[in-house]
């Protein structure tokens, strides 16, 4: 479980996060949603420590992360897997080397065990026998899968996904969402997904946090979307005609 308290972050005069609090549950996908520029990615980067918040606390289980010592931060980070928007695969390494990378650097596992683990993870994300391909040779959806395989290879307790569906077709997006949801349930990870894709929200949104202009305006699950009672949230969710019709039918 991850708990955040009163996270604030400004860049110059612009207050991006204005005191966000919340809890991300273990074993189910937690979604942070909102329009572009509302601070979703900044919040995610504050949680994983890529950006230091101006104020507030992030707790991994009972360990406070934001003000933790370097050693404790490193220890917590080694339990984190993250899928980046563009995949963030290492260009000069093959798919296999990319997935094996955390094992090479962070563990003393024997080579054959590492290879078994990599093959298991690649199979789990549906990429068997793609080991020797370079990142430039695989599609956008495959890059995301490799990114997921790399994120889970080290038995991560926490999985973070920054816009996992950006640049993907709707069908592949759904496959990636399902994969994230399955992995979350299977490995009991605490998964936080930043997205503005409504398919994801409706498909895997077990715990949804809606951000608007740096504030958390709504929190709930996919079944509660229809009756949020928050105008800004309704404007975001029911932005297109199809969704508005669905709302009326409901």
């Amino acid at each position, binding site marked *: 479980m991850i708990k955040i308290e009163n996270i604030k972050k400004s860049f110059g005069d612009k207050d991006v996060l204005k005191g966000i609090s919340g809890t991300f549950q273990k074993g189910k996908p937690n979604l942070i949603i909102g329009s572009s520029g509302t601070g979703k990615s900044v919040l995610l*980067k504050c949680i*994983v*420590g*890529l950006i230091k918040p101006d104020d507030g606390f992030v707790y991994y289980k009972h360990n406070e992360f934001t003000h933790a010592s*370097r*050693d404790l*931060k*490193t*220890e*917590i*980070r*080694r339990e*984190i*897997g*993250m899928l*980046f*928007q*563009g995949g*963030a*695969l*290492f*260009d000069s390494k093959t798919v296999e080397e990319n997935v094996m*990378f*955390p094992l*090479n*650097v*962070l563990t003393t596992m024997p080579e054959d065990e590492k290879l078994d683990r990599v093959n298991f993870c690649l199979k789990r994300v549906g990429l068997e026998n793609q080991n020797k391909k370079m990142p430039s040779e695989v599609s956008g959806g495959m890059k995301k899968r490799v990114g997921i395989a790399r994120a889970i290879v*080290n038995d991560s307790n926490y999985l*973070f996904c920054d816009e996992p569906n950006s640049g993907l077709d709707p069908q592949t997006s759904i496959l990636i969402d399902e994969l994230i949801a399955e992995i979350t349930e299977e490995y009991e990870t605490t998964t936080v997904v930043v997205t503005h894709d409504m398919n994801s929200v409706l498909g895997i949104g077990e715990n949804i946090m809606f951000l608007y202009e740096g504030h958390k305006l709504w929190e709930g699950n996919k079944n509660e979307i229809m009756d949020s009672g928050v105008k800004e949230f309704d404007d975001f969710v029911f932005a297109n005609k199809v969704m508005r019709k669905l709302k009326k039918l409901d």
Partner: protein
Amino acid sequence: METLGKYFIFLGSLFVNRETFKTYFKLTIDECVSVGIGSASLVSLVAFFMGAVTTIQTAYNLISPLIPDYVISLVVRDMTILELAPTIIGVIFAGKVGSSMASGLGTMRISEQIDALEVMGINSSSYLVLPKILACLLMYPMLVILAGLLAILGGHLAGVLTGVITPQEYIYGIRFEFNEYTVTFALIKSFVFAFLVSSISSFRGFYTTGGAVEVGQSSTAAVTQSVIAILLADYLLAQLLL
């Protein structure tokens, strides 16, 4: 001043929270191949012609019959060892290796590869930059030695083939009142220049923000600032050590 402070903090960050020796060893060897072997042909070519041109131009300027011909090779030797091999090759090294380091790290930054390392709990600056600096410190002095030898060889061939100096006089001049300290001085310079080029270029690349245009700007800034640093250090070292 802020940038200078950030640069020193960056240097400090290279030595904390490091990975295992084995990890760095492999990375450093890879970087040595890239930095050393990758630059050897360009350095050789430049050094050879630099020596040849220095010989011809020195001969062209020494027209007095009172000055013996072996002075030509003596001038070539001292110029090569003291200045041309460490400094001019340093400028070329900054252009080739420095720009490559800055653009490589800059691309890693904008494509979130550096963030990926940080999230894994790896000290990205140490993991990515320390092997580059170590490789430059190991390989650049060797490149300077190679450049010095090839420049003197180039001078020999050019002098002999054009008839401005005989082989015997050239060799005599090379050996005449040779001061070994000049080689020590050249090697000290080469270590300093290697450190400056690798650290400044890595710093510029590591803190790239934005997109492709900014990667290009970082690369240009890395070369410009490395060259300025080389020239300043060249003056300071000459003042202090000669």
